[in-house]
């Protein structure tokens, strides 16, 4: 990774933007980091379909649950690497020491991670839905809930990733820390899709997902920053 241009002199939006670009460039250069979680998503969906014997009716009924749970898991996997490399080569330490205000580059990293995980999964969701025989009329609801819910997953998960970045075997620990926090997003997301299939309105869930994402954007960057400081000091 290249050095970061002295961010003390830069304004917050410029700091955000340059960090965001740097993250995206590094993702494009090492493709597997972004692709592996997406591959996992589709692999696991296929395994569910095979496990259920390919029965369209069964699959359609549990499709919202399968897709949402696997999105949670895939997102968590891509979070594991969020701070890892920068932690190992020391970039993270410089970032935390130099950046003013400190949460800006953190937010930029999370935003870039969301683009290659949450956003990508949202765009690929129709394919996942079709494999599992979801009616095509439900697909917009699935995509909207994913679009609104996945930012919260990335933000909440980043807290866990920041806490576990310095630990040797952080993978399973990350799951234990983060998955309980994902419960509301899972419930609102999948229940919106289920209710749409039953012909019931889904506004309540969509508002709730927006609210959770808003709260996460407001609070998570500060907590992630605090957590990174703890991990770097170790």
């Amino acid at each position, binding site marked *: 990774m290249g050095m970061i241009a002295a961010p003390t002199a830069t304004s917050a939006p410029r700091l955000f933007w340059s960090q965001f670009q740097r993250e995206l460039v590094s993702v494009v250069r090492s493709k597997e980091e972004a692709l592996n979680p997406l591959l996992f998503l589709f692999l696991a969906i296929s395994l569910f379909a095979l496990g259920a014997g390919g029965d369209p009716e069964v699959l359609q009924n549990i499709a919202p649950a399968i897709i949402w749970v696997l999105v949670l898991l895939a997102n968590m996997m891509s979070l594991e690497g969020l701070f890892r490399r920068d932690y190992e080569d020391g970039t993270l330490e410089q970032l935390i020491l130099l950046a003013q205000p400190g949460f800006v580059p953190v937010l930029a990293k999370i935003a870039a991670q969301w683009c290659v995980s949450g956003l990508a999964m949202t765009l690929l969701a129709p394919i996942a839905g079709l494999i599992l025989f979801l009616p095509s009329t439900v697909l917009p609801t699935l995509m909207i809930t994913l679009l609104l819910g996945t930012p919260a997953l990335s933000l909440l998960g980043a807290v866990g990733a920041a806490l*576990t970045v310095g630990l040797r075997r952080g993978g399973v620990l990350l799951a234990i*820390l983060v998955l*309980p*926090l994902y*419960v509301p997003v899972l419930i609102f997301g999948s*229940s919106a899709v289920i209710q749409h299939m039953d012909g019931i309105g889904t506004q309540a869930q969509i508002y*709730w997902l927006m609210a959770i994402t808003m709260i996460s954007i407001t609070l998570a960057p500060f907590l992630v920053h605090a957590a990174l400081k703890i*991990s770097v000091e170790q």
Partner: protein
Amino acid sequence: MTLKTLWHRLGSPRWFYQISRPWIYVLGILALVLLVTGTVWGLVFAPMDYQQHDSFRIMYVHVPAAMVAQSAYIVMGFAGVLLLVWRMKLADMVLATVVPFGMSMTLLALVTGAVWGKPTWGAWWVWDARTTSMLVLLFLYFGLYALRQAIARPEAAARACAVLAVVGMINIPIIKYSVNFALTLHQKASFTLTEAPSMPPEMWLPLALNVLGIYCLFGANLLSRLRLEILRRERGTQWVRDLVLSGSA
């Protein structure tokens, strides 16, 4: 003593160690009296429920355990804020000591709930809003426990747990609302602060005693564990050495 000096003194584990001694006895004795009275009254003398018969009596254990399990997490959340913002040593120790108590109370609430659910709902486990949110609470406790175990340096472990406890505390109301939204089968709350109970006094008074009793037990447990933790962490200091040598620790 003004509030401000109390605030500053709370920063000193030694001061806390000295003043907390009588409180353990006060809270411990209160807990014993309240819990024994409430439990015996509730299990033996309170009238039977006309629908649930004797099985309702498990509420005298279940409700206090569930209430204190949730309060314990809130206590940790606030201790987390104190630690992250003011670096208060005592808050760090609170975080370390509450987890086992909270975890066991959550388990107790879940187990008594299952025992009650079998005759009443006909199933040991039901995915209903309250049971599910207690289960998620248990997972949140597990997370705190696992995180503390994973980090070797105690100060770093405490602050990491503080971050997690704060996130958990913000999340708990949202979790409760979301599971309420999706699943609802449970008994309504037996006790709320805002409404008169729908039970006759012979039934809710023992419950009230048990609830108060378990909070006293929580306080006594927290204080005695805190005092042990203080001794352990300050073992290198002169005052602890003097205390131990004089035999009054």
